[in-house]
């Protein structure tokens, strides 16, 4: 366990711990009873219903929520059932439970994988060996598998495992019978939570850490290193560009409202969702090069110049339009620059030369109109050509096309013809069993499904009809 403090406690665990501690209050805590086992009496038992009532009263929540919170406490091992130890749920009746102390430091397994902390595997091996001794060799199921697995993994320390297991059992015998039972139950619950049986989800799993590694690390000493890092962080933060959230949100809303009808998840797709109906007409109709594009696709070209250029069909039509206006060399130049940027490293020199000869040299075949300052800069850069040497010129031409030709294209007859000729594919009728009452939707949109869907596998959705609203 090489150095390093464990990471910050997971916040939900510290909250649960506070709840459990407030339950222990002798005056205002949960009522405790005694558990009677033939001649042994063990105190500090709570009934499930008492826990639920206490939670409802203390936090003013509904009974359903209290039950859920109680089950969370049981799942994490703060409370364990006495009758059926493997079923970690809170039952709101008089099922007895008992508390145990959980060390939150142990419950950050994300930071301590078994390679970093050999003691975790060793602990589990010792526990299984003790259980093996107690059950006279009758370990079953996943515990037997884990036992064999551990024996293969750490067979070199197996002497220690056996020695420790025997000694721990002997040490336990020094206690009273009631205490022994309690401690054994506690250990069993601990391992049920930390090594759940197959099929039971592990409550201690955390998703991938999205924020930076230093988030949540507890700083031990505020020395000069720490302050230097803080200063650097704030300096970087000052140089960040800031946008007012009102501006951001407006743009976001506009984008969402514009693109909503085009999103297959939000609005369904016509003729039908290929993943649902196994019919790939949708893909063939929206292939990159198709003679008659769909209406949605043509409309998208009107959203922004970038959309038009990204679609190969749109770009081809735009090129045709530019040819009628005798400014096709702009788009050719732009395409050539794109090829340079994304092409192979070995071809950079040759390509730069070709582009210069064709577009930039005085008296070239397709001379492009770039302003003098950009031209000077580009010509200087051509002395040492690299992939991005034509970026300025490309950007200039791009803005030219966007401000000038693009708006004319959208108002042109060519574009309007395209819109008129574009097809709206009809929604495919799904063949259904004759005895189905509801007609299943061929392109269900999960966003519009009602909260409780039917369990029938064929009827994937019983949502409202959104096919007609696709345009």
């Amino acid at each position, binding site marked *: 366990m090489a150095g390093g403090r464990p990471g910050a406690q997971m916040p939900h665990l510290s909250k649960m711990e506070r709840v459990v501690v407030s339950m*222990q209050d002798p005056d205002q805590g949960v009522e405790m009873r005694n558990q009677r086992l033939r001649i042994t009496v063990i105190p500090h038992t709570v009934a499930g219903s008492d826990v639920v009532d206490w939670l409802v009263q203390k936090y003013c929540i509904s009974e359903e929520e209290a039950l859920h919170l109680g089950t969370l406490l049981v799942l994490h091992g703060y409370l364990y059932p006495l009758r059926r130890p493997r079923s970690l749920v809170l039952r709101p009746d008089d099922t007895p439970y008992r508390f145990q102390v959980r060390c939150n430091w142990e419950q950050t397994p994300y930071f301590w994988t078994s390679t970093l902390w050999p003691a975790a595997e060793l602990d589990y091996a010792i526990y299984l060996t003790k259980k093996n001794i*107690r059950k006279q060799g009758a370990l079953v199921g996943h515990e037997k598998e884990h036992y064999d697995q551990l024996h293969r993994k750490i067979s070199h320390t197996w002497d220690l495992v056996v020695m420790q297991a025997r000694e721990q059992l002997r040490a336990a015998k020094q206690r009273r019978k009631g205490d022994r039972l309690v401690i054994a139950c506690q250990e069993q619950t601990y391992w049920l939570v930390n090594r759940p049986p197959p099929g039971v989800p592990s409550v201690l799993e955390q998703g991938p850490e999205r924020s930076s590694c230093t988030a949540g690390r507890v700083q031990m000493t505020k020395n000069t290193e720490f302050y230097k890092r803080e200063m650097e962080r704030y300096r970087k933060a000052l140089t960040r560009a800031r946008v007012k959230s009102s501006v951001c949100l407006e743009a976001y809303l506009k984008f969402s409202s514009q693109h909503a009808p085009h999103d297959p998840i939000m609005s369904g797709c016509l003729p039908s969702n290929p993943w649902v109906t196994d019919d790939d007409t949708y893909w063939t109709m929206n292939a990159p090069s198709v003679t008659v594009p769909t209406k949605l696709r043509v409309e998208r070209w009107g959203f922004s110049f970038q959309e038009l250029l990204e679609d190969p069909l749109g770009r081809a039509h735009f090129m045709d339009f530019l040819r009628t206006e005798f400014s096709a060399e702009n788009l050719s130049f732009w395409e050539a620059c794109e090829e340079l940027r994304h092409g192979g490293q070995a071809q950079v020199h040759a390509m730069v030369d070709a582009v210069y000869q064709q577009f930039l040299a005085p008296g070239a075949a397709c001379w492009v109109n770039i302003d003098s300052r950009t031209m000077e800069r580009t010509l200087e850069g051509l002395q040492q050509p690299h992939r991005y040497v034509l970026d300025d010129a490309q950007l200039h031409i791009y803005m030219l096309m966007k401000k000038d030709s693009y708006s004319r294209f959208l108002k042109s007859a060519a574009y309007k013809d395209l819109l008129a000729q574009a097809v709206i594919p009809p929604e495919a009728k799904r063949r259904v069993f004759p005895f189905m009452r509801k007609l299943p939707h061929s392109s269900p949109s999960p966003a519009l499904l009602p909260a409780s869907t039917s369990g029938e596998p064929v009827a994937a959705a019983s949502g409202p009809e959104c096919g007609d609203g696709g345009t």
Partner: protein
Amino acid sequence: MAREECKALLDALNKAIACYHHLVLTVGGSADSQNLREELQKTRQKAQELAVATRAQLTAALRDRGLGAEERAEFERLWVAFSGCLDLLEADMRRALALSTAFPLHAPRRPLVRTGVAGGAAGVAARALSARSLRHEAEGDFDVDDLREQECEILQVSEMIHDMEMKVNVPRWTVQARQTAGAELLSSAGACSVGAVSVQERTGPCDPSKALAATVFSAVLLAAVALAVCVAKLS
């Protein structure tokens, strides 16, 4: 012989660590008290003393170049067991520190978790220290000073582990343990059912106080029978 000494020391260390583990399980629970904290400290210190002694012996033995292959294998086995013991001890000490800080016994007092453990652990500590019994009374503020000591001791143990790894080169993958899977079932000494979760009451033959009571009772019964026979004969 050096091997026997090492083995004896390792057994004692093993016992101390097992008892310490058992004591740590009850920190923060209803049986927590200043006495428990003092027992923890005593067991911990005993374990550390034994660890230092074992380490000295084992290092001396392994550094000896004139050791035969079989002897060396034996010492390497002991070494691997010893480093495992230290890992367990360090983990338990950290756990104990975290729990002692989370459940301080001095004011401001946080209510202890009512776990149902009621009895004292003096027997366990006595076993660790190989004493017959332990009688003491801890002062009221024991745990405050103890916390600082615990931190220092944890650092000492981590240093010891680190030193061990650096100074003695024992490749773990070459060590073959003596015990195989299921070896724990073969011994008779530890094979009694202890603390079973179900409510089976087993009158196992391994309870010394019960055995003593049984012998005394049978002796008294025999005496009574003999007296009755004498009375019957006399009358």
